[in-house]
């Protein structure tokens, strides 16, 4: 069980308890039904079916907290209510239905865990998790001297690019360059703004990739999320440097905004998944 398996929203309850709750409630309800039936106790077996209903809601919750949603698991509470709201005349049929339903929920739980990934990672307020968090922390000293206005503009540029508003990116990035005061690590941030302005213009106008384009230099490498690729193209004519320049520029501006413009963190959270995808490549 990895750390990311802890469901979001309630870190006090370990994720494994939620996972176990599905078979425990569903099979537990069925077992209770078998016990009451074999011992001749005359009660409405719908009470034992409540275990399946609870297990369905737990499974739906586990599906909901994952970034990739499983529509089948999400709709199990509807089926649980439909199946068990109306009592069957025959006790054996009710018990068989509960057992089959418990097996189905267990299969769906396994499917959910293997096909739909881990729940969204939790993080303390004001922090980022995973490689993105590590990178942002690494760049913190370099971002300390950035003018707040430039850092805010970095957030705007990053968010505009994430939203596919490439026309705005060019304008905002040029504005960001003017706000840098030239001190400390400003050259790397200036290059990041320039790369985004250039690449946004290429995307906006649907131009082919140019042979010559703005790139980071080896002097900037300590601040970059990923190493600079070799400049030559591969056998298929693919130049990895063009995409790497964009990825590094996006991540550097995200880090600048996060570290030096605290007021923008809420907005940056809306594109955190995007930044994570970029850094995880």
């Amino acid at each position, binding site marked *: 069980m990895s750390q990311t398996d802890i469901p979001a929203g309630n870190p006090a309850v370990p994720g494994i308890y939620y996972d176990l709750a599905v078979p425990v409630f569903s099979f537990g309800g069925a077992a209770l039904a078998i016990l009451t039936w074999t011992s001749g106790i005359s009660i409405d077996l719908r009470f034992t079916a409540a275990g399946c209903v609870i297990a369905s809601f737990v499974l739906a919750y586990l599906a909901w907290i994952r970034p990739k*949603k499983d529509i089948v698991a999400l709709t199990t509470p509807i089926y649980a209510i439909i199946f068990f709201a109306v009592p069957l005349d025959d006790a054996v049929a009710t018990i068989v239905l509960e057992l089959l339903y418990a097996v189905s929920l267990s299969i769906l739980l396994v499917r959910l865990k293997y096909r739909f990934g881990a729940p969204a990672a939790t993080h303390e307020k004001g922090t980022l998790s995973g490689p993105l968090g590590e990178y942002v922390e690494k760049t913190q000293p370099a971002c300390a001297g950035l003018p707040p206005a430039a850092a805010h503009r970095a957030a705007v540029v990053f968010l505009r690019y*994430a*939203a*596919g508003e490439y026309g705005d990116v060019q304008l905002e990035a040029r504005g960001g360059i003017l706000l840098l005061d030239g001190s400390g690590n400003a050259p790397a941030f200036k290059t990041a703004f320039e790369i985004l302005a250039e690449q946004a213009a290429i*995307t*906006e106008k649907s131009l082919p990739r140019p042979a010559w384009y703005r790139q980071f230099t080896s002097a900037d490498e300590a601040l970059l999320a990923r190493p600079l690729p070799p400049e030559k193209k591969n056998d298929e004519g693919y130049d990895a440097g063009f*995409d790497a320049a964009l990825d590094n520029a996006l991540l550097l501006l995200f880090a600048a905004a996060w570290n030096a413009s605290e007021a923008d963190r809420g907005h940056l959270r809306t594109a955190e*998944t*995007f930044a994570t*995808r970029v850094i995880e490549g």
Partner: protein
Amino acid sequence: MKIGNVEVKVSILSIGVFVIFTIFLLVASVFSSDVRSQLIWLIPGLFLLLVIPVVLNYMSRSEYADITPVYEAAAKAVRIKLINENMIGKPVRIEGVVEKVRFRFLNRPQFIVADRSGEIAVKMFTNPDEDIHEHDVVEVLGMVIHRYVAVGDPVINCVSIKRIGKNAGPAKER
């Protein structure tokens, strides 16, 4: 079958339904005189099972043909990795290799398209102009949408998918 400039295709599912109900009708008409007396209605009704999907397919395909030039003008070429929830509603153009094709038999194919940066589901609500198979290199035009209307990861609602290269083999092997 071609109606005007539109190539209309009937799904295997529609043909299957038609065949099953034809067999039901044949068997029922052999054993029941009541059914035989209603054949004047039942036979046209049976053919409607084929005609209605054909008409719907024609309507959706002609609609897609009309909006494709709009997307060709407006869509921006992006890498798959850069497609995210903030781009919902934006027209995009991607190029990649088809890794999987699902639900073709429903005339609602879903392609998994991958490029060097990642993979994404491409959903189409009618059949494409040309038969697209696994490992084809394709260009996709479409809009970024949520997988389940308002929730779920971003996928592409495909307007046009065209083969632009020969069979490339699985993307991960390249």
